[in-house]
């Protein structure tokens, strides 16, 4: 082993993001000093991004099973049964660090990566969603980042022909130096045609397909496992460059080959590229792997094995074929004008062996690489309880407040964003962006999938556990509000530096809350991703961490798309009801408090999971029975904002009186108490009696009609609301 065994110094080890202790473990595992190729491979596999070394211990607490689950975490994506021999395959993943350094390519390759995770399992991708967090709208970099990220997501998703159907966006100064791009893909497969990644069969050929390997993205996984210093922009070469055209060809070629039975195992080359795909396939299959680096298709001349193993060039796949099926597979990939190369074979050595120009340049036992990766129990402290808010005086009229709120950064219309995404390609999009959840018909059937991504980071900062619960509950509510039965979820956990006990405390708290809620609402976590070190060092030497942002992506099932409903008021003269609980006017951590009173304080609202479940079941039943014509959950901005959204969407006003006059008006209308829905009905008597029968609180608020929203006799026109609602993003992005 001569080629790259330049002596490893302490600096080399540190520059690979490995601690001295981790380096000692490597030496013990090998029984010798690693060469540079081997060190690079260990550093990628043991990066936070690939190994989950800080979070793994706590992730084990999450519920991951259920009758509906075909495959939980551990594979490329989670698989859920949707009946009739079909499965939904989905996952959400972060691409935060790259999207800050190079927003267009960072976001584009985030979409490309999550698409591959889904179609590598045999599913045709049917929908993309994304959850984005940016810094303050006033920060000079924010418009540039928004524009680049949105164009990147659109540029990739539009070209591959997968509709981008939903998402959420927040702005907060805590993301000034670390924006978040979380991308989710949902695909549909036949349950008897699902492909897994465990390699098997000594002697079987290992095949590389897709694009060639270049020098882009080397050390991407290591970069994404550190915080940003002042040199964030200098890390641009670690960002990958995407080619959605190649991805589209790769999707079609893979699905064409998957229609046969030639594939034994398949895995996309994502973070840590060829290294992680080869290691994961071999270690899952408890076999060995031997690769001839001379056979790897390269884009540039003179690439070394070190570069080939650590490149994160996009649009590549690794697969194990059945012997004798190479020619048939090659013909398909050639037809789609993609590279196809047999680069090695499965062995029974349980080692990964790489050869190059006749020399062995790497020989690592697989067990320590994958299974024995470090797992830390990092010290953590419980997040201190936030102080209760106490009484906050009103500030201006509620209608003026409402106009301000519907135009505020977190509540303003996202039209400027989603009109840049092809949200209809596939011709199965039943509900476009702008509602509670997206609804996409399962092609060729009457069934439909509902999907939503949710988290309220400001709640998570005040109380990680309640915030974690709330993220799941809101996702559950959004799917319920369109009439879908929530099936399962994926999590994308974005936090700061886990080596700080207070950040680790946020992680532990959020996971606990998520776990409880997923259990109570029967939405097991079937896939996910963790993104840590979302922090930037400040001029004064301190470090600014993002708000804790554990994003939850959920999917739900509708047996017939025609049974879905939307937020829009449909008819004049219908009655409006509040279902779930009366609400206590909870203004702590609310949007009203931040945007109107200029304060970010108080406790997060609490979530009663049993009540969520019973209310959700009731709402779905009412939608199914056609008892309600419009449904909207109450979330950010409270009851008044939910009413305004229903009125604007339907272009029909409403006249409403507070049902509880003991609360101050502003707390009643803008409080963010959880577990509540607004519904419109022309069937009030039956609706109320059904609610009473189910033991659920229900309150009449008013009636639809006119072109104004009238709250306690104070009117504001829909035109005024809409003007404010539509202005924010176009003005920011001018």
């Amino acid at each position: 082993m001569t080629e790259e065994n330049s002596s490893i110094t302490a600096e080399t080890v540190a520059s690979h993001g490995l601690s001295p202790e981790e380096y000692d473990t490597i030496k013990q595992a090998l029984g010798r000093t690693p060469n540079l190729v081997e060190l690079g491979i260990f550093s990628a596999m043991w990066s936070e991004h690939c190994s989950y070394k800080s979070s793994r211990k706590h992730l084990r607490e999450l519920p991951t099973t259920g009758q509906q689950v075909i495959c939980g975490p551990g594979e490329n994506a989670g698989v859920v049964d949707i009946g009739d021999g079909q499965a939904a395959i989905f996952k959400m993943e972060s691409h935060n660090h790259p999207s800050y350094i190079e927003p267009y390519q960072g976001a584009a390759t985030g979409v490309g990566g999550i698409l591959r995770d889904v179609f590598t399992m045999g599913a045709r991708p049917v929908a993309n969603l994304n959850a984005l967090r940016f810094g303050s709208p006033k920060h000079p970099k924010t418009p540039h980042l928004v524009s680049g990220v949105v164009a990147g997501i659109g540029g990739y998703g539009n070209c591959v022909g997968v509709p981008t159907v939903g998402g959420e966006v927040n702005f907060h100064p805590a993301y000034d130096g670390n924006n978040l791009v979380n991308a989710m893909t949902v695909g549909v497969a036949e349950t008897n045609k699902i492909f897994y990644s465990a390699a098997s069969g000594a002697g079987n050929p290992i095949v590389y397909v897709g694009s060639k390997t270049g020098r882009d993205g080397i050390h991407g996984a290591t970069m994404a496992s550190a915080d940003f210093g002042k040199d964030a922009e200098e890390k641009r070469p670690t960002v990958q460059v995407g080619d959605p055209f190649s991805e589209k060809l790769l999707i079609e070629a893979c699905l064409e080959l998957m229609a046969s039975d030639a594939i034994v195992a398949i895995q996309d080359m994502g973070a840590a590229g060829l290294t992680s795909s080869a290691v994961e396939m071999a270690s899952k299959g408890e076999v060995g792997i031997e690769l001839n680096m001379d056979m790897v298709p390269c884009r540039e001349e003179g690439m070394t094995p070190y570069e080939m193993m650590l490149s994160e060039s996009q649009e590549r796949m690794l697969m194990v074929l059945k012997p004798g099926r190479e020619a048939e597979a090659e013909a398909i990939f050639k037809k789609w004008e993609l590279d196809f190369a047999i680069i090695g074979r499965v062995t029974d050595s349980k080692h990964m062996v790489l050869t190059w120009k006749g020399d062995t340049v790497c020989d690592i036992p697989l067990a320590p690489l994958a299974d024995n990766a470090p797992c830390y129990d990092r010290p953590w402290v419980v997040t201190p309880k936030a102080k209760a808010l106490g009484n906050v005086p009103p500030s201006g009229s509620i209608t003026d407040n409402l106009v301000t709120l519907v135009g505020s950064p977190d509540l303003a219309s996202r039209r400027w964003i989603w009109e840049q995404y092809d949200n209809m390609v596939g011709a199965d999009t039943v509900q476009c962006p702008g509602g509670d959840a997206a609804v996409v018909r399962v092609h060729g059937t009457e069934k439909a999938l509902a999907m939503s991504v949710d988290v309220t980071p400001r709640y998570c900062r005040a109380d990680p556990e309640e915030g974690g619960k709330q993220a799941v509950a809101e996702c559950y509510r959004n799917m319920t509000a369109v009439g879908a039965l929530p099936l399962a979820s994926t999590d994308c956990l974005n936090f700061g530096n886990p080596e700080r006990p207070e950040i680790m405390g946020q992680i532990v708290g959020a996971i606990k809350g998520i776990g409880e809620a997923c259990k109570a609402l029967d939405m097991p976590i079937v896939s996910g991703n963790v993104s840590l070190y979302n922090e930037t060092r400040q001029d004064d030497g301190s470090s600014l961490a993002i708000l804790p942002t554990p994003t939850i992506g959920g999917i739900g099932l509708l047996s017939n798309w025609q049974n879905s409903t939307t937020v829009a008021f449909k008819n004049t003269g219908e009655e409006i009801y509040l279902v779930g609980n009366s609400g206590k006017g909870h203004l702590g951590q609310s949007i009203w408090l931040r945007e109107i009173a200029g304060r970010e304080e108080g406790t997060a609202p609490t979530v009663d999971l049993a009540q969520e479940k019973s209310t959700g079941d009731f709402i779905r039943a009412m939608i199914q029975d056609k008892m309600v014509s419009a449904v909207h959950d109450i979330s950010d901005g409270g009851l008044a904002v939910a009413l305004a959204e229903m009125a604007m969407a339907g272009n029909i006003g409403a006249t409403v009186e507070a049902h509880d006059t003991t609360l101050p008006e502003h707390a009643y209308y803008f409080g963010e108490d959880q577990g509540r829905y607004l519904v419109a009905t022309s069937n009030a008597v039956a609706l109320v009696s059904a609610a009473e029968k189910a033991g659920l609180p229900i309150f009449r608020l008013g009636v639809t009609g006119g072109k104004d929203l009238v709250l306690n006799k104070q009117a504001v026109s829909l035109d005024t609301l809409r003007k404010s609602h539509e202005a924010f993003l176009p003005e920011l992005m001018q």
Partner: protein
Amino acid sequence: MKAAVLVFPGSNCDRDLAVAIEKICGTEPAMVWHQETELPDDLDLIAVPGGFSYGDYLRSGAMAARSAVMSAVVKQADRGVPVLGICNGFQILTEAGLLPGALMRNAGLSFICRNVGLEVLNTASSFTRLYKKNQKIHLPVAHHDGNFSADEATLDQLEDEGRVALRYTENVNGSARNIAGVLNKKGNVLGLMPHPERMIEAAHGGKDGYNMFASLMQVVA
């Protein structure tokens, strides 16, 4: 009805178009790969789908226009076979010289996906005969390069000869004279940026695109 849908590397509305044709016209179209040099005989329709053929690299539609199958399409178009190009299909047809003008980057420089208002101006063609003259319809657009451009003389000629099939009712993408779809001289080739195949059933929120396919069906029957 005997129809063919072309498939280029990067086409992504080919399936949607095939579904619409089968649903409305009753027969499954042949899917024809871009490397074919011949098209089936006796076609009643050649449909060129939307998407990003060849990744929109070079210019949208430019490389697809030079693929093997397009020579066969030009021959059949000359013989009078109806050719329908939607979105990227429209771009390909202008690049292939079957339709005048060019589709440039949207005036706002961003991709635009939304339902837009349209007016049907030509109701004589095989594609539009079931619409009423000056009928206002809504169809979705989803494109980055939909800004129709041609010199003034060509635009005048198109208008004079009734070859502006569809006009946007608002300025969507900067297109000259708000032109959304044009016909060739003989009237058997239509290119349009909006997607009729995405507006043919209740699940799409409307059926304003249905008659484009039903019109073709009526011609055959």
